[in-house]
């Protein structure tokens, strides 16, 4: 969790760093990096009773299996139960295929917008100062805390048929993108902020003394050091977009072939009892999530390498 980030302000709810920090705990076991500066190893005094460890481990693994692993495996199993051919067919049905294409395209757009705007917002929050900045900073976490269906309703309110400012995004892909942008807002901002904060100001001063102007300094000194964090956040935003359900349900109108995202399509399939079809598209989503997670892990390792 974000508990160990170096943010000045309190970190927010389900933070993007919950994925990154996965590796911190892993490193610890080998006496790896800790902010305490001491390399820590499990002591043999505590670990004497291996039986308690085993019991605990067994319990934890069982819990994890019953709730997460076995059910997910069941999805993959069910999708391939009738053979790869059927799997492929299930994905290639017109509405499933359209939904997948839309979801991937929208997620890419959302990821890119977040890459730019998220970095920009993080920059303004760290480098700039204006009255109300702290409030704005706190607001960033709201999409994390707000239920997705509420987010969808909220956006539909102002950008729907009864929009007070005349912008109607209902039943449109733009509406889907808007919903996704809303829920992914905090990701890039929150991963970039701590890095920006820690950035060695003297590097920028050195660049200035060597003749580099502000834009050059940003391009060649700041950005390369921010890149791992920016990419991490973007990968998280992409992953979340792919999986998003609740916020798109209302504003998109769920028009098949037009505004129906993959998760909604799966939902429809479940309701119509086409379980295998649902499982097939689900498996595709899981596969994409897996790739995103692996990429994220690689980016973070790269980031750690640079920063040491």
């Amino acid at each position, binding site marked *: 969790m974000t508990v160990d980030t170096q943010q000045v302000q309190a970190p927010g709810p389900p933070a993007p760093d919950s994925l990154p920090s996965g590796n911190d705990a892993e490193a610890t076991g080998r006496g790896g990096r800790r902010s305490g500066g001491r390399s820590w190893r499990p002591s043999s005094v505590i670990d004497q009773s291996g039986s308690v460890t085993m019991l605990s481990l067994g319990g934890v693994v069982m819990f994890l299996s019953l709730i997460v692993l076995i059910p997910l495996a069941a999805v993959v199993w069910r999708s391939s139960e009738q053979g790869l051919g059927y799997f492929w067919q299930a994905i290639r049905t017109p509405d499933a295929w359209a939904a997948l294409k839309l979801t991937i395209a929208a997620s890419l757009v959302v990821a890119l917008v977040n890459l730019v705007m998220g970095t920009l917002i993080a920059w303004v929050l760290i480098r700039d100062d204006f009255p109300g900045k702290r409030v704005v900073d706190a607001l960033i976490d709201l999409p994390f805390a707000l239920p997705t269906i509420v987010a969808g309703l909220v956006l539909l309110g102002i950008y729907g048929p009864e929009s007070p400012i005349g912008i109607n995004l209902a039943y449109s892909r733009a509406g889907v993108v808007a919903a996704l942008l809303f829920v992914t807002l905090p990701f890039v901002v929150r991963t970039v902020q701590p890095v920006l904060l820690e950035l060695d100001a003297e590097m920028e001063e050195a660049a200035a*003394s060597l003749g580099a102007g502000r834009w050059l300094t940003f391009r060649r000194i700041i950005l390369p050091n921010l890149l791992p964090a920016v990419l991490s956040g973007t990968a998280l935003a992409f992953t979340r977009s792919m999986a998003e359900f609740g916020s798109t349900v209302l504003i998109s109108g769920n028009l098949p072939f037009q505004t129906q995202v993959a998760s909604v399509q799966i939902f429809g399939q479940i309701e119509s009892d086409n379980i295998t079809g649902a499982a097939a598209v689900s498996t595709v989503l899981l596969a994409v999530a897996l790739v995103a997670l692996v990429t994220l892990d690689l980016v973070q390792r790269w980031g750690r390498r640079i920063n040491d």
Partner: protein
Amino acid sequence: MGIDVRNVNKAFGSTPVLRDVSVDVTAGSLTALLGPSGGGKSTLLRVIAGLEKPDTGTVVISGVDATRLAPQRRNVGFVFQHYAAFKHMTVFDNVAFGLQVRKRSKSEIRARVGELLELVHLEAFATRYPAQLSGGQRQRMALARALAVEPQVLLLDEPFGALDAQVRKELRAWLRRLHDEVHVTTVFVTHDQEEAIEVADNIVVLADGEVRQAGTPAEVYDQPVNPFVMRFLGPVTNIGDRLVRPHDLELSRDAEPGSSAAEVTRVLRLGFEVRVEMRLDNHDAWAQITRRAADRLSLRPGDTVYVRPNAEARTLAADAA
């Protein structure tokens, strides 16, 4: 290539950090800004570099008024205490940076960087990253980087502060040799008086934002103008209400004109010198004498001894401002 700082004032918020500071740095010299932490030396250096703007006053570099110039336009090289290495670039790219900014040709850059890496003995590390270098190597890289663009002035902010004592001594001597070769007007900040005396042509003593004295190492050490400078530059002891250097004292068994009586409390043999601790006028004092002198006197704790500054010694009234 000289630097002329006139009447610079700078405050951070309501705290004044530089008070009416004027400093004259001769072209081609190696000058130390010496003083205790928080005394304003780093701020003054950064004002010269353009990394801070003075509230009032002027900075003239090589005859050009640089007071309002951005650091990019001053052509000063700056070396930071913690190296400020571009950690995402190789050593080569670090050193080449300034040249790339000035859009020099690739071959020119390669030649110049090669030259500089040789100068600082880092030729073998060109493709390494700063993280793979030791502190001393990183600082040498930082120096090469600053020198690459042929600055008019080289500024170093406690350049050896983050290094071990041994490395510090080596680099100190190396900086002096480098300066003798390259002759760039150099100013460096330090709180270590030994370092300043060893390396610099001129020392400017700064404390509480004010210049306390400026002069050659010999001048500030042997002819301090106030007790602060005297205490900061070397050991000081109080004999008869005057401050004098312990090694400038004469001790004898008999009363001499101008000497004070003292009771010996301890005699410490430290290598080839002897430290005689005494008590006089209700305070402690000490003298540093040679072994031969000590043997001749054969002092023991409890003995009475007569102390006076020797004829050429510079003394200051103890309560002088």
